[in-house]
């Protein structure tokens, strides 16, 4: 089985192809990860957005919905929920808001990224209208109430009685500056 170098070629081609494919697979893991999280609702990554048909309100159960606000590092805005906690019936449409103030002396743009805990509840929390859908421009010193309209699905599993909705606010001024309207297309995935 002593072979001249040319006879290695088919095997080499296959092994090189495998190497290239695995390099590609590494990058394929990125969308796969997002798809996986969205299908299963893991990591609180769910795009339950837009209009929801209101099915009957289940007055038998009461769900506590807690609101948390977190600033990403280097984000100077004051950011807090108007109501820290709401008690809702499943199926009921609720309106609340987060209040932001831009204490800095310059125009800034923020973007909030939501996360739901427990992650199992993520797919049952429908955000009908959320400030997190778009970026938030604020003039220096401006204060604004950012609206949130949501409903908890009546199909929420029995054992969940408390849902925590957390928003992390990011400073996206540098990215938004050239054209604030361009951002929705730019960001890889809108939340």
């Amino acid at each position, binding site marked *: 089985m002593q072979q001249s170098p040319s006879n290695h070629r088919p095997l080499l081609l296959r092994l090189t192809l495998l190497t290239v494919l695995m390099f590609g697979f590494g990058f394929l893991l990125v969308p796969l*990860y997002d798809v996986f999280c969205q299908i299963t609702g893991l990591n609180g990554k769910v795009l339950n957005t837009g209009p929801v048909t209101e099915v009957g309100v289940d007055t038998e159960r009461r769900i506590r919905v807690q609101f948390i606000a977190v600033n990403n590092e280097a984000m100077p805005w004051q950011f807090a929920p108007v109501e820290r906690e709401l008690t809702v019936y499943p199926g009921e449409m609720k309106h609340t808001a987060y209040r932001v103030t831009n204490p800095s002396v310059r125009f800034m743009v923020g973007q909030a990224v939501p996360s739901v805990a427990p992650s199992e509840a993520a797919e049952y929390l429908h955000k009908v209208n959320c400030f997190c859908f778009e970026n938030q421009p604020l003039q220096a010193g401006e204060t604004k109430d950012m609206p949130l309209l949501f409903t908890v699905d009546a199909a929420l599993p029995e054992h969940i009685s408390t849902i925590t909705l957390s928003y992390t606010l990011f400073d996206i001024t540098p990215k938004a500056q050239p054209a604030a309207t361009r951002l929705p297309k730019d960001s890889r995935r809108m939340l």
Partner: protein
Amino acid sequence: MASVDQTMSDGHHGPARGITRWLYTTNHKDIGTLYLLFSLLMFFIGGCMALTIRAELFQPGLQMVMPEFFNQMTTMHGLIMVFGAVMPAFVGLANWMIPIMVGAPDMALPRMNNWSFWILPFAFTMMLSTLLMEGGGPNFGWTFYAPLSTTYAPPSVTFFIFAVHMMGISSIMGAINVIATILNMRAPGMKLMQMPLFVWTWLITAFLLIAVMPVLAGVVTMMLMDIHFGTSFFDAAGGGDPVLFQHVFWFFGHPEVYIMILPAFGVVSEIIPTFARKRLFGYASMVYATASIAFLSFIVWAHHMFTVGMPLAGELFFMFTTMLIAVPTGVKVFNWIATMFRGSMTFETPMLFALAFVVLFTIGGFSGLMLSIAPADFQYHDTYFVVAHFHYVLVPGSVFSIMAAAYYWLPKWTGHMYNESMGKLHFWLSFIGVNITFFPMHFLGLAGMPRRIPDYALQFADFNMVATVGAFIFGFSQLLFVYNVVCCIRSGKQATDEVWEGSRGLEWQLSSPPPYHSYSTPPTAEQLSKASH
């Protein structure tokens, strides 16, 4: 010995002279030697870093180094030992032994072989040079989790990324070479299931390397793009996710730890039969167990990240698949024990290292089983228990097997016997040193001492002091090994061709040292049957 005198005709009379012999060489033995010497150098550099860490941890409080430098030491120690010491050592062993063991004249792609070695010194020079740069070297742990390695990384991180790219290229080329050699260049009549187990484990390791090193290249490329080109793979502000980093990294990382242990299994499976003077028990089951471990390594990665907030189903899946690995590993351990059962054993240095491997690797395996239990892992995660676990499988696991292999084949490589008493002294100092160093770390971890910290609470002081003493015993006793190797090369007594009484395999039918070009004509059927396992 038909193979002894094969250097006539065709103008190949032996190695060239001077430095160009080593720069231009395409000879598998020369390149194997280069790999082994390089990994020995890296072993000492990484070892000095380990001793810096242990010296700082001798007492609570900050005595020797600043926390920033401490972090660089833990990071570089891990990177150097994994990519610079253990992996090149096994590639060196593969280069030296695989062509001889399968009766091939050389590796399949000798020029590429030269290239894959000579990339390494450049890669590691670049990586080590980051320690002298402004902002210091990598300080984010060898697992380089984002955003520590992206948003908060020192400016030198780009050099780290390119160094990882280079060593990845080197490993992939090495792996392709190994596969081509094993599949295409075996002696006529040698079937796959007749190959020595070291060759088998390396074939499987090479496939693991080809499967996961590109993923590592991918993940560092994503980091590079996040840092310099404004993408947001791992940056939540741009819609990315830092947890994604951990998934992609450990998809590489878990097979990587088997890349570092499967060839060790092969080495031990060669040594134990020799010194037990029996054939390896359960050859076929060894091959299938190795393949099963390799397969399982792809579906267990998230057990490194039980605490990131996975759902229950995920925790259970990764917990059970991880526990499943204990089955093929157990098969191997029992096969080694069965090989020794009623054998006429002698305890030369390679055998001592191999036996210590079996015992201590099994201890590391058991602490691994403890860590695989997801609810328990919530307590153990990121504590010294994890440090104890992976050092038990890597130091008395991989490193001991490399030492065993070095003593086992050193007489074949050099043609001289090493000093047996010095070898035994080296073994016992290493064995005692390793256990004094790493065993107390189990207790520290269970008591809650976190890893990667330069200072710690007072109640951990005693065990840390013990561990540091052990580390210095272990570290300095490695100098004995170097001295022994130098003496062996220069002035050992002449070794016989068989070297060991119970040795089988094609390598023992060559002279000691083997001719520069061996098996230019393939071994005969008679030689093969004599060597068969």
